[in-house]
């Protein structure tokens, strides 16, 4: 009988992933001529500056609406917009600027990265390293620190994620713990020793801002500061979860081909602005050097080699729901998306490997 997956980053699955060569493996890439890839990778400040100006104006505008309409029902649409911008769109800004691909100018990436990390209650040092690991070992059990839905799936937890409660309950105590100088064994497994003190310092700065926000709220005798800073992580997270869950949910784990464990979904323009084109997620994982604004072009270029993209989020969730239900009983079950006839086939020698079964031997 296959063993249960161990999602710790220092446990049995970690050892097996290293022993079987799944950790830091060579991954499949669609062939793209160097000249074309070089063009796609080119950096530009223009699109990100434009989008960031829109983003900041919308954040400030909706925040002003919240303050202006405080204690009236008119506040609701402003809370809706502000919450999504603060609690959801910050995730894609964090992500793109963390990769350093959004802007050509490094300091612009760094500033937006740190602001977005704060909005998300993410330690910017810790998460930079966890995301590097996510790209090295995407959905490799025991290695990837960013597996959103583990197997068997906890559907109540997944549903609660839309409210932000679980993430909030995890993120804030994590920052507090780190601010007191304690990093977990999992965190230490992917943050180099020479960077640990930076993670502690970053957590302390976040705590200082939250303490200041609480102090201002108390001094003013008003909830407004907290509704604007901190709490949007609760009421505005739903769009990040709605789009982000689809990245890998229900697909294969322990494979070395992003076509098998990652999903591209066509989305409406508003969601794509909020999500900064991360709906082209197979493309992003295969070629993380390509900036968000060039991903649609990359998609057109390599789509012949990828499973057909889901035409909508609704379609993707409908497709994955029965898979999740089946995983409740058979956690090894996953959705294997068909490749078009123009694609290079999956490499069976890697993908038939069952490290949970191997563990039982």
């Amino acid at each position, binding site marked *: 009988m296959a063993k249960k997956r161990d999602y710790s980053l220092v446990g049995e699955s970690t050892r097996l992933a290293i022993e079987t060569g799944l950790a830091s493996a060579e991954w499949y890439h669609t062939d793209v001529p160097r000249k074309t890839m070089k063009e796609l990778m080119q*950096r530009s400040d223009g699109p990100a500056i434009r989008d960031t100006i829109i983003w900041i104006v919308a954040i400030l505008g909706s925040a002003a609406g919240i303050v202006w309409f405080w204690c009236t029902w008119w506040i609701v649409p402003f809370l809706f917009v502000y919450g999504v911008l603060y609690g959801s769109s910050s995730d894609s800004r964090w992500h793109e600027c963390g990769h350093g691909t959004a802007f050509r100018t490094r300091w612009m990436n760094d500033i937006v990265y740190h602001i977005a990390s704060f909005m998300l209650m993410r330690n910017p040092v810790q998460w930079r390293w966890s995301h*590097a690991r996510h790209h090295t070992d995407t959905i490799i059990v025991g290695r990837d620190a960013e597996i959103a839905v583990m197997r068997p799936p906890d559907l109540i937890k997944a549903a609660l994620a839309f409210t932000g409660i679980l993430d909030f309950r995890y993120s804030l105590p994590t920052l507090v713990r780190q601010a007191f100088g304690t990093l977990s064994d999992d965190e230490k497994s992917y943050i180099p020793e020479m*960077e640990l003190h930076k993670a502690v310092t970053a957590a302390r700065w976040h705590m200082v801002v939250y303490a200041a926000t609480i102090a201002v709220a108390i001094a003013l005798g008003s909830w407004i500061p907290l509704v604007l800073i901190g709490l949007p992580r609760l009421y505005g997270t739903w769009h990040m979860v709605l789009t982000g869950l689809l990245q890998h949910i229900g697909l294969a784990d322990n494979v070395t081909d992003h076509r098998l464990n990652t999903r591209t979904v066509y989305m409406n323009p508003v969601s794509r602005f909020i999500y900064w084109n991360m709906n082209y997620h197979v493309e992003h994982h295969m070629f993380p*050097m390509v900036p968000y604004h060039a991903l649609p072009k990359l998609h057109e270029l390599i789509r012949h080699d990828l499973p057909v993209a889901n035409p909508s989020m609704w379609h993707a969730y409908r497709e994955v729901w029965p898979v999740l239900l089946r995983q409740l009983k058979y956690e090894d079950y996953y959705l294997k998306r068909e490749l078009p006839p123009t694609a290079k086939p999956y490499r069976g020698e890697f993908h038939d490997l069952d490290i949970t079964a191997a563990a039982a031997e």
Partner: protein
Amino acid sequence: MAEWVEACSVDDVDEEDVIRFDHGGRTFAIYRSPEDAFFATDGFCTHEKAHLAEGLVIDDIIECPKHNGRFNYKTGQAKGAPVCVNLKTYPVKVEAGKVMIDIG
């Protein structure tokens, strides 16, 4: 001791670009800067085993294709997380249209 080897022709590398050069079981990266000067470093990123020649050259920076780690390819200096260890650089000279690197 110096050991000069021919890595490529000058025309093999586009301006502001990089190519891979394998020699004696080792891998190097050969750069041509926007000022039309040539440079050489180890071929693999010091963070994880990724070929820098598949990365992007921006001014005097090479960005690793795997995690976007950035190095100054002229000095080998790591420019911050996720790269913390500097890249080894090698002396380069151009002779008769050939790029030579000292791998000694």
